């Protein structure tokens, strides 16, 4: 009985903390994006609300909350309302298996720094990521708007196309690590000094990064929101908080993908040089140092997201499909075959 209460209390606290953390990072990711994009285009970015514009995300959130909700005449109301909720729900669920730091002891029990430690971790992740399409398809279809429909179709076709090579890149990682559990994968990367998987799996890393960009509908794969053609894509008819949920889902997915890149390819929460120069897991403050490394690596990948948005032009739709199916998919299969050959010989 006490065990049951313990588990429930622990997961409740972790869930609330994780959701709070994800929303805070959503807010400040929008701020960072506008600030960095501004600097890259010789502008200041937001600098009016609070010092350095740091209160801008709060002001934006408040504005979106107080906006009028326009629900167009011909929408299918229930689906129209459920779709953004599905999007945000899926985005929040995906983060559950990411370990953000080493385990720690509290109240006589070892606690893990992830919401759940399931042994089918990556399979769960792939399943949840696939569900992300539903929010977009349902929202775009129920809006009864041509821009929405086309934008939704485009992004769903794009997401399922790139999901294939993303999934195959994941399998190559699983083959190397021999486990589906994210914690096992972090451990496998840090067994022998530096054997992080972006060194052993450079092509898999690239495939996963590209697939991640496409999954989150970010530049250069942001065809769903090609403003010149489609206004705002699948969320054209959404306003205020409902739009904000889609917006939040996109940014939280970015955070999740970065966290996954960190976990699967960049050695997770273990710092550079661990095992060679020192052993971080036994150091005092190991947990804090671990979380710091995790956040640092994730932030670095998030910066890459913004950097690429400022650098690369958007692809054309036929180029996007051609690239996904005729380049990425064969390369992903080949990568898997080579990795499997290597693993089966050792």
């Amino acid at each position, binding site marked *: 009985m006490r065990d049951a209460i313990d*588990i*429930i209390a*622990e*997961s*409740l606290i972790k*869930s*609330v903390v994780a*959701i709070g953390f994800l929303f805070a990072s959503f807010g400040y990711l929008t701020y960072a994006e506008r600030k960095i994009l501004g600097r890259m285009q010789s502008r200041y970015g937001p600098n009016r609300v609070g010092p350095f514009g740091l209160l801008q995300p709060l002001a934006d959130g408040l504005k979106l*909350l*107080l906006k*009028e*909700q*326009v629900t*167009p*005449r*011909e929408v299918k109301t229930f689906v129209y*309302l*459920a779709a*953004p909720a599905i999007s*945000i*729900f899926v985005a*929040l*669920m995906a983060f*559950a298996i990411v370990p953000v730091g080493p385990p720690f002891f509290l109240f006589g029990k070892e606690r893990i720094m992830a*919401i*759940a430690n*399931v*042994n089918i971790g990556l399979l769960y992740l792939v399943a949840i990521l696939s569900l992300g399409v539903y929010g977009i398809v349902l929202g775009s279809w129920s809006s*009864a*708007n*041509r821009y929405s*429909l086309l934008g939704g179709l485009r992004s*769903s*076709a794009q997401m*399922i*196309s790139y*999901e*294939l090579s993303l*999934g*195959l890149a994941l*399998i190559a990682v*699983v*083959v190397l690590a*021999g486990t*589906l559990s994210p914690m096992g994968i972090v451990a496998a990367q840090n067994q022998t000094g530096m054997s992080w998987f972006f060194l052993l799996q450079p092509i898999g890393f690239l495939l996963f990064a590209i697939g991640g960009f496409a999954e989150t509908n970010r530049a250069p794969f942001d065809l769903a929101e090609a403003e010149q053609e489609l*206004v705002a894509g699948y969320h054209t008819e959404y306003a205020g*908080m409902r739009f904000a*949920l889609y917006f939040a889902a996109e940014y939280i997915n970015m955070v999740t993908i970065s966290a996954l890149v960190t976990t699967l390819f960049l050695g997770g929460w273990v710092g550079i040089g661990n095992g060679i120069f020192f052993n971080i897991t036994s150091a005092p403050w190991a947990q804090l140092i671990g979380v710091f490394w995790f956040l640092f690596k994730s932030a670095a990948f998030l910066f890459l997201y913004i950097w690429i948005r400022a650098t690369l032009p958007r692809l054309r739709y*036929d180029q996007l*499909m*051609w690239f996904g199916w*005729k380049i990425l*998919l*064969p390369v992903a*299969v080949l990568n*898997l*075959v080579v990795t*499997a050959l290597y693993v*089966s*010989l050792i």
Partner: protein
Amino acid sequence: MIQAYVPLLILALVAGGFAASNILITFVVGPYRPTREKLSPYESGMTEIVPPRQRFPIKFYVIAMLFLLFDIEAVSFYPWSILLRSLHFAGFIEMLIFVAILLVGFIYVWKKGALDWE
């Protein structure tokens, strides 16, 4: 082992409640002053001529079907990928046969032009 999934269930409840309350709150806060024009579908300022629900290109269906095929293939890789260390080279050969069969299908799809987008 089933215990490991309890946190996921609780997260699902918290996240679901959070998502639902965010949608429901939109009915409470904010003004509501609908007009006829405001409630019409957005058409970049033009008047609506044809009804917005129309058929869309068959291409998207084809992509979706191909995705199903290849995704099921990817799923059947998962159990194999964990066991590969104990299957050794024989496991690799078996997987190679599987990939070869898939490759035939992929080449067929490619040559049929299902992957071309015009």
